[in-house]
């Protein structure tokens, strides 16, 4: 489903330093697979997710999503992005739109669905994430957990083939993390292809098919959750896990 081959990405910081965020990064993710990416801060996790839908341009290498090369000369990035849902750490809901409008807007504008059809799909999804009763309020009136569930519904409304989660629960108060993780677990069980960057090891243990440990822009170790939590191989992985577990 997602195929990244020998991807390089270097940032130039405002003070002209070079930061190698991805170095010869190769990863293949199958359809229906739930992959959890862990790693220390600055290891390139977000950068990789953002390269998958071309929010960042890569310097070298190749990324294909569902067989489509992101950087082919004829690639229509808007079309490709329709198939890739993304959930951000800070939700990024549209504050001037109601919950309902947040979920229907892209359906109407991008998928060209009728108002009625978009509303039906939105209502079903808002019900699924347990927030249908708030459909007419503005995001600022919701708690963090509620906002993030709306953001997930907004992404799902495009009926994407892949969902990317970038620390979807990191900005939440502890008592709200569970409600968002529950939604993500349901999605995983339904067979959605998911790439999840998270510090929630419970989630990784419960639903991940594969865990990837990244450091300094590279994949250091990859394996089942079981492998990771019982006998990780690399010293770097052991150190990281001992710090967060």
């Amino acid at each position: 489903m997602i195929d990244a081959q020998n991807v390089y990405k270097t940032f130039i910081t405002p003070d002209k330093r070079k930061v190698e965020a991805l170095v010869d990064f190769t990863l293949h993710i199958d359809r229906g697979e739930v992959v959890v990416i862990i790693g220390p801060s600055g290891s390139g996790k977000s950068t990789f997710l953002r390269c998958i839908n071309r929010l960042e341009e890569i310097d070298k290498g190749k990324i294909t999503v569902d067989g489509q090369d992101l950087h082919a000369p004829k690639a229509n990035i808007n079309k490709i992005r329709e198939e890739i849902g993304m959930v951000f750490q800070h939700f990024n809901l549209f504050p001037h739109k109601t919950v309902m409008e947040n979920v229907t807007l892209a359906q109407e504008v991008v998928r060209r669905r009728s108002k009625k059809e978009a509303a039906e799909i939105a209502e079903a999804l808002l019900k699924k994430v347990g927030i249908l009763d708030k459909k007419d309020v503005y995001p600022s009136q919701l708690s963090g957990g509620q906002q993030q569930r709306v953001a997930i519904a907004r992404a799902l409304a495009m009926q994407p083939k892949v969902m990317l989660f970038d620390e979807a629960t990191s900005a939440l108060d502890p008592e709200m993390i569970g409600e968002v993780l529950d939604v993500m677990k349901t999605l995983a069980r339904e067979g959605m292809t998911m790439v999840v960057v998270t510090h929630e090891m419970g989630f990784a243990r419960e639903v991940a098919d594969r865990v990837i440990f990244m450091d300094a822009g590279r994949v250091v170790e990859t394996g089942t959750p079981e492998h990771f939590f019982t006998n990780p191989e690399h010293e770097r992985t052991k150190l990281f896990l001992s710090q967060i577990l």
Partner: protein
Amino acid sequence: MKFTRRSAITVVVLFVVSYLFYYFFMRKGITYSWHWYDVPKYLFYYGKRFTDEPAPSWHMGALMLGLVLTLKISVVSIIFAIIIGLIVGIARLSDEPITKFISSCYVELIRGTPLLVQIYIIYFFIGTMLRLSAFAAGAAALSIFEGAYVGEIVRAGIQSIHKGQMEAARSLGMSYSQAMRHIILPQALKRIIPPLAGQFISLIKDSSLVSVIALADLTFRAQQAVAQSLNAFEIYFTAAGLYLVMTFTLSMVTQYVERRMAVSD
């Protein structure tokens, strides 16, 4: 309404101003005999506009005619200034170096030269070449001038919207222009209403400069009325009052719009 520090300052200012008035007109012995009764006919009058008109009736006086023209040229210029400002504001944020360069040059050029000079250039040079009427030349000069300022306001407004908004919109498959139209501009608009209102108030006042190309706006008519009646104070105070009515109305309207748009906060 609460008595704030600002109202305290207002009271002090009013006090000082009225004292200065008193000082110069009374104590210093400048004798000025007021002829306020002469003013109303410059607003409305009952009579014949031309000697061969069949019957007398009510007509707008010179100041009212000037007010109408000032309103007209201001409304036209505000509309074009918004269009120019939107284009320039977005162009200045473009990734395309040429677009960015041209729009930056426009802003610097217009902001770096006086409006009065621009009006002369547009009227005498471009206006003559293109056979523009004085009104068209005046409106063009005002639109181009204010458009540069509106462009800067629009640019700052767009930049003030968190970049996560654009990313969220794009990640849903929206194109750049769809994201601009549905997500960024509506949010930016809400933030730029106060500075935009300030700019349009400036525009109404700046429009008085078009009187130099013999456009019969409020200022021009006031000058004529003074030349005719010699009641400079009364006429200019009245003209100032009329400008104030326009700017104050605009101010009130924007406050109303701002309150209406605050619902999603």
